[in-house]
């Protein structure tokens, strides 16, 4: 009960107990295992890992269980855990050209070297509820694709479709990755204007819904320039994470992670120094976060407006607006903190409001008295309020 704002220790303990029982739900049904969530709610796990900035499917699944399925609460749990972890070293940049793809498409070309590969996509499903899934009594088997089907060749580089255009100068370069100077938003405060590495980190951690809406707004005309965006390439697959331990001096692989990468191109009209060409936007997420990766790429492109000397006229181009309001843990904390007790401030506002109302009553009474006594126009003029005191 909220009136127990004071003496709340017992109330908090009771609330936690109540929460635990609600989380468990009706005990006639078996309890969810973390492995079940990890295997069968994988896209939720992927989102929690991406926005929690921690690649650990088991912990993300545990967080989802603990949060009763609330993604933002789960992301928060994972971030609060991550913040206590020591930082051993930076990996060398992921080589996403050496990716074991499960999905790879380009919307810009009908076919491409390496081929189009749909992978496990919802894209061409009909969104009809499949009532057969409601029946879990009979064991069904769903065969996975074989290794030959996936045509995985471990050390072979998969060409990037945009590189073909870059060779003709039709698309701008992707920039020179310099691992030693990459910023870290989890270790340094965000300062504006932010460089692109910082911006992309922030966008990857950002709330999926917010970034989706921001990307969408650029498609509906809330941007300065640039033609229609094209999905140059979208790829999902496993990449090796490599580090160079000081005592070895050469890279070793410490494991694989699944990522989704998206590159968007749109026509850039050029400037005095730059010829017209396709400009790039880039996005990457953990797991299969394709919707978000595309959105990040759109917003990244919109936020490059200063660098490309475009006018800033739309919300998605406004770095401060986008970056400062994109983090759902920051946002949810500040929005929801309104439910904390504020009675000291409220008392102050009551005091002010009472004074404002009393001033208003007095001036109203004065005004009415004046109107009544205003028998001649001359008197009205003489009695008019002087100044604002």
């Amino acid at each position: 009960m909220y009136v127990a704002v004071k003496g709340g220790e017992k109330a908090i303990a009771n609330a936690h107990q109540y929460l635990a029982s609600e989380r468990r739900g009706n005990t006639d049904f078996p309890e969810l295992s973390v492995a079940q969530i990890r295997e069968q709610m994988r896209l939720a796990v992927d989102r929690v890992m991406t926005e929690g900035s921690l690649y650990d499917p088991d912990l993300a699944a545990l967080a989802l269980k603990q949060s009763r399925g609330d993604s933002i609460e789960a992301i928060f749990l994972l971030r609060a855990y991550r913040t206590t972890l020591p930082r051993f070293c930076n990996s060398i940049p992921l080589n996403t050209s050496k990716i074991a793809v499960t999905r790879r498409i380009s919307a810009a070309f009908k076919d491409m070297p390496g081929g189009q590969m749909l992978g496990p996509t919802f894209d061409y499903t009909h969104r009809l509820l499949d009532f057969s899934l409601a029946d879990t009594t009979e064991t069904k088997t769903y065969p996975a694709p074989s290794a030959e089907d996936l045509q995985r060749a471990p050390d072979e580089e998969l060409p990037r479709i945009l590189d073909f255009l870059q060779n003709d100068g039709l698309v701008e370069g992707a920039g020179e990755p310099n691992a030693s100077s990459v910023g870290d938003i989890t270790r340094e405060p965000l300062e504006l204007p932010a460089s692109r590495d910082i911006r992309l980190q922030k966008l990857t951690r950002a709330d999926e819904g917010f970034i989706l809406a921001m990307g969408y707004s650029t498609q509906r005309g809330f941007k300065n320039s640039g033609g229609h965006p094209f999905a140059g390439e979208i790829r999902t697959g496993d990449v090796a994470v490599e580090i160079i331990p000081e005592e070895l001096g050469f890279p070793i692989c410490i494991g694989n992670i699944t990522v989704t990468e998206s590159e968007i191109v749109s026509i850039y009209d050029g400037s005095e120094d730059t010829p017209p060409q396709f400009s790039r936007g880039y996005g990457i997420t953990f797991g299969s976060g394709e919707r978000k990766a595309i959105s990040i790429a759109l917003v990244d492109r919109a936020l490059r407006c200063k660098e490309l000397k475009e006018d800033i006229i739309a919300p998605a181009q406004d770095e401060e607006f986008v970056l400062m309001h994109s983090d759902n843990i920051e946002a949810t904390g500040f929005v929801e903190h309104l439910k904390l007790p504020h009675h000291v401030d409220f008392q102050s506002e009551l005091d002010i409001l009472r004074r404002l109302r009393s001033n208003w009553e007095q001036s109203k009474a004065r005004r009415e008295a004046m109107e009544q006594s205003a028998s001649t126009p001359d008197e009205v003029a003489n009695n008019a309020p002087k100044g604002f005191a």
Partner: protein
Amino acid sequence: MTHTTIGQDSRQGQPDEALLEHGYNFAFLDEQTKRMVRRATLKAIAIPGYQVPFASREMPMPYGWGTGGIQLTASIIGQQDILKVTDQGADDTTNAVSIRSFFQRTTGVSTTENTQEATLIQTRHRIPEETLSKDHILVYQVPIPEPLRWMEPRETETRKMHAHEEYGVMHVKLYEDIAHHGHIATSFDYPVQIADRYIMSPSPIPKFDNPKMDNCPALQVFGAGREQRIYAIPPYTKVHSLDFEDHPFTVQSWEEVCSLCGSDESYLDEIILDNEGNRMFVCSDSDYCRKRLEAGHTGAMSEQQSDTPEVNSVEVANA
């Protein structure tokens, strides 16, 4: 890393066995993070009222619950410290209880409700009524550290304004208040100028508390976790609440006195007692009120519950 509870005499609220969570460092944050926060804090003390950016971490409480203050407390707390946590002036509001229990679990330090006994006081929205001494550090939780934010939403702009000491908009805002209402219509988070230089947000304390900041012997540090800023007022620093010569700064006053302890000089909470809208006023600072009751002071409603002179009981009656 694990820690054991240090041997302290058993004060109220002291954990009697090791409650420290396995796998977490003393006071939750790792030592590198604490060092980073301490460096930012030292810079803040060196430039009174200036907002120092720091790499705020995710904490196990949400942003808006006091993560800035919690990080400051976690970075400066030592095993010998005695911690007091208040919210809205009271030690027993839910959030104060939760933060105090967090530090009990992660540090094992002694906690107290007694302002005089505490060495470290984390607060939200109030400054204790009792005068602070040089042995106190007061840690404020800050939601919006930028006093110019309501006039200029952009951080890139407000930082320039501070750098150039370009505070015209603030004075215009206060002037417009007087022009419209005849007085400055800001009752909490009332802007102050520190050591004749930076304009600073005192956090959402009622302006009633502003005079306590001026020339205060205690170190006052402010943490805004979500906004990634730390700022400070060193001991014995001039803190001026903005005003005009012909409209000097004033604080709230009440026609009522505290119904429990009869104090006529503390900040009062208004409590609605029943469906008829009857109300009473009690001290917002629960420790101050308790001490006065123990010293034999009485108010209009204290006699009928003289057997349990606790602020809590009134709130229960309110339920």
